[in-house]
C-alpha cells in the first residue's frame, strides 16, 4: 500500500517535471527572461531600391526614435513641454506616458529627422535618449509611386512594406531585427554591472531594377502632358524589354505620394497597370491575327469580302466608321481596323482554337510579375462562350485584360513568339555587395518566329497606313495598333465613355521596347488614333533620342 503511494507520488513528480522541463519550457524561459531582462528591439536598415542606371529611387534617411527614461527625469511636465514643442507633439500625451507607473523606457516619437534631433540634443535634457531608426527617402519625389509601394507600420509598430515592390519584396528589404537585452533588478531598473546581450540587426538587401530612371521620368512626364491635352480621367504607360520581360518604365495616374501616403485615398494605392482591367478593343486584333496565322487559317495575303455590316447571333457588327472596302487582305484588315474582318478570322479559327490562343497568350491568369497588387480578370469556361462573344472577342470587346497582360502578349510578337514572365527586379544585392541576379524567364513559345515576323510586318503597315500615321516619327519602323474600347456600365456599353489605347514596339526589326499607352474617358476625342497613338509616338521619340536610335 505504502509502496504503491510512493510509486504514484513518484510518477506525479516525474510528470510534473516533464511538464515544466519539456512542455512549458519555452514559455517559462520567456517569462523568466522577461523578469530578468528588458529587451530593446534594434531595427535593421531597410534595403534600397536602385534603378538599372544605378540611381536610388528609394533609400534610407537618417532618423531617430526619441525615448524618455522617467527615472532620470526630474520634472516630467517641464520635460514634456520642451520636447513636445520641439517635435510638435501633444504635451499631455508625452507627460501621461512618462508618468505611467512602472515604465522605465517610453518611446516618444518615431522617425524624427536628424535636424530636429540635433536641436533636441542642444537642449541637453536628462532622460531623453535617441536610437537610430532610419526612414524612407525618395530622391525622385513621387516618381514610380505605384510601382514602388510604400512603407508603413505593422501591428507591432515595426516597418512593413505595402503594395508594389515594398510589399512584394518586404522580406528581402526589411532584413532581420536585432535586440539589446539588459539585466534588470526587481524594481525594473537596469543593473549597472549586470549582463547585456546585444544581437546586431541584419540590414535588408537592395533591389536592382530593370526600371531605367530616365525612361520612367519620360513616361511620367509625357503621360501627364497627354492626360491634360486629351482630357483623360486616368492613364497608364507600360514599357517592357520584349527580349527579357524586364519592365523599363511603368507609370499611371492619378497616383499618390509615398512620402505622405496616409493623406491619399486608399484606392490610389493599387497599381492599375497590374490590377486594373479594361477591354482592349482593336489593339487585341493583333493577338487574334497572330493566332489565325499561326494556326494556318489565314495569311497576311488572305482576302475577305468586307461588303457591309454582318449579323452574328442576332446582333449587328459594323466597322468603327461604318465604311466598307470590299475585297481586302488581312494586312488591310489591320490597317482599316476592321471589326468585320476580325470576325472573319475568329470564325476561321473556331471556338476551341480562338479560346486556346487567348489563354496561350497569357490572358485570364496573373502574369506573376513581382508586384504585390497583381490580379487578373478570369476567362469564363469555353461552354459559356456564345457565337456573339467569340465574334466580339476577336476585335477585343467583351474580354477584359490588364495592361501588363496586354504588353506582355504583344511582347511575344516582338521577340519572335516567346511569352516572357515580366519582371521589375533584375537582381538582389546584399550588404557585402554580393549580387544575386534574377534571370529572365521564358514561359513558352506562343506563336512561331515566322508568324511573329509576319504579324510584325502587318503591324508596321497598320502604323504606316492606318489612322494614326500622321503622328508617327519619320524614319523609324514602328509596329503598332490602336485600340478604342467602350466601357461597360451596368451591363451595357456607354458610347461616350471609351478607353483609348495604343500598343506597339520599335524598332520593328530589333525591338528595344514594347509599350502600351492607355487613356480612360478622354474628352478631346474618343479615338485611340487621335489620343493614345500620338502620346505613344511622343514617348517613342524621346526614347529613340535617349537610347541613340537613329532614323533609317
Amino acid at each position, binding site marked *: 500500500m505504502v509502496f504503491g503511494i510512493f510509486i504514484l507520488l513518484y510518477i506525479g513528480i516525474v510528470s510534473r517535471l516533464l511538464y515544466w522541463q519539456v512542455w512549458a519550457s519555452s514559455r517559462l524561459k520567456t517569462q523568466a527572461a522577461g523578469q530578468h531582462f528588458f529587451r530593446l528591439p534594434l531595427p535593421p536598415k531597410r534595403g534600397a531600391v536602385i534603378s538599372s542606371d544605378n*540611381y*536610388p529611387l528609394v*533609400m*534610407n*534617411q*537618417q532618423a531617430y526614435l526619441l525615448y524618455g527614461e522617467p527615472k532620470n527625469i526630474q520634472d516630467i511636465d517641464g520635460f514634456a513641454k520642451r520636447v513636445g514643442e520641439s517635435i510638435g507633439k501633444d504635451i499631455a500625451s508625452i507627460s501621461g506616458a512618462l508618468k505611467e507607473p512602472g515604465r522605465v523606457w517610453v518611446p516618444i516619437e518615431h522617425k524624427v529627422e*536628424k535636424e530636429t534631433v540635433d536641436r533636441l540634443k542642444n537642449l541637453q535634457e536628462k532622460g531623453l535618449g535617441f536610437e537610430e531608426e532610419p526612414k524612407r*527617402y525618395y*530622391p*525622385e*519625389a513621387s*516618381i514610380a509611386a505605384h510601382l514602388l509601394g510604400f512603407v508603413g507600420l505593422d501591428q507591432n509598430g515595426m516597418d512593413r512594406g505595402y503594395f508594389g515592390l515594398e510589399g512584394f519584396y518586404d522580406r528581402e528589404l526589411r532584413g532581420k531585427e536585432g535586440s539589446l537585452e539588459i539585466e534588470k533588478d526587481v524594481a525594473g531598473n537596469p543593473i549597472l554591472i549586470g549582463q547585456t546581450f546585444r544581437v546586431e540587426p541584419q540590414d535588408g538587401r537592395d533591389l536592382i531594377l530593370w526600371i531605367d*530612371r*530616365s525612361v520612367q*521620368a519620360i513616361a511620367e512626364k509625357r503621360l501627364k502632358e497627354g492626360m491634360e491635352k486629351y482630357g483623360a480621367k486616368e492613364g497608364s504607360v507600360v514599357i517592357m524589354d520584349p527580349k527579357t520581360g524586364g519592365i523599363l518604365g511603368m507609370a499611371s495616374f492619378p497616383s499618390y505620394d509615398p512620402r505622405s501616403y496616409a493623406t491619399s485615398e486608399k484606392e490610389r494605392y493599387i497599381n492599375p497597370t497590374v490590377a486594373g482591367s479594361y477591354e482592349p478593343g482593336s489593339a487585341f486584333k493583333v493577338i487574334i491575327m497572330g493566332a489565325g496565322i499561326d494556326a494556318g487559317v489565314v495569311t497576311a495575303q488572305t482576302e475577305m469580302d468586307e461588303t457591309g455590316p454582318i449579323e452574328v447571333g442576332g446582333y449587328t457588327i459594323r466597322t468603327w466608321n461604318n465604311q466598307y472596302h470590299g475585297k481586302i487582305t488581312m494586312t488591310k484588315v489591320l490597317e482599316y481596323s476592321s471589326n468585320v474582318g476580325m470576325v472573319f478570322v475568329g470564325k476561321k479559327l473556331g471556338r476551341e482554337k480562338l479560346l486556346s490562343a487567348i489563354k496561350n497568350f497569357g490572358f485570364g491568369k496573373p502574369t506573376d510579375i513581382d508586384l504585390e497588387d497583381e490580379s487578373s480578370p478570369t476567362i469564363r469556361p469555353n461552354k459559356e462562350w456564345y457565337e456573339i462573344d467569340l465574334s466580339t472577342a476577336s476585335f477585343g470587346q467583351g474580354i477584359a485584360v490588364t495592361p501588363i497582360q496586354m504588353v506582355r502578349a504583344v511582347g511575344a510578337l516582338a521577340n519572335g513568339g516567346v511569352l516572357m514572365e515580366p519582371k521589375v527586379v533584375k537582381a538582389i544585392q546584399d550588404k557585402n555587395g554580393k549580387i544575386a541576379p534574377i534571370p529572365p524567364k521564358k514561359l513558352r513559345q506562343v506563336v512561331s518566329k515566322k508568324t511573329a515576323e509576319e504579324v510584325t510586318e502587318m503591324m508596321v503597315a497598320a502604323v504606316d497606313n492606318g489612322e494614326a500615321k500622321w503622328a508617327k516619327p519619320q524614319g523609324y519602323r514602328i509596329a503598332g495598333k490602336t485600340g478604342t474600347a467602350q466601357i461597360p456600365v451596368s451591363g451595357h456599353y456607354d458610347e461616350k465613355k471609351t478607353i483609348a489605347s495604343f500598343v506597339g514596339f520599335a524598332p520593328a526589326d530589333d525591338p528595344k521596347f514594347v509599350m502600351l499607352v492607355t487613356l480612360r474617358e478622354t474628352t478631346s476625342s474618343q479615338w485611340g488614333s487621335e489620343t493614345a497613338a500620338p502620346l505613344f509616338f511622343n514617348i517613342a521619340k524621346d526614347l529613340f*533620342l535617349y537610347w541613340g536610335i*537613329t*532614323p*533609317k
Partner: protein
Amino acid sequence: MKFIVSIVAFLLPIVAIGLLVAQIACANNLAQDGSTLKTLTATIETLASENEALNQKIASASSLLEVEKKAIAMGLAPGKQFLTLTQGQYLVAFNQKR
C-alpha cells in the same frame, strides 16, 4: 639545503613582484586595447553615419528634379529639333585626311 632555501626565499618575492608588474602591464595594455577598440568602433559608426548622410545628399543633388531645376536656372531648354547623322550623311570635315 639551507643555501637553496635562502636563494628561493630571495628569488620568490622578486618573481612575485615581476609577475605583478607584468600583470599590471598586461591589464593596462588590455584596457588600452579596449579603449582603442571603443574609439575605433565609435569612429566607424560616425563615418558610417556621415557616409549615409553624404549618400543622401548625392542622391538629392543628382536627382532628375534637381538637375532639371538647375538646367532651367542656367537657361537650358528642352530640344525641339534633333539632327541625326546616318551612314552616307557624314559631315564634310569627317572625310578630310588628318
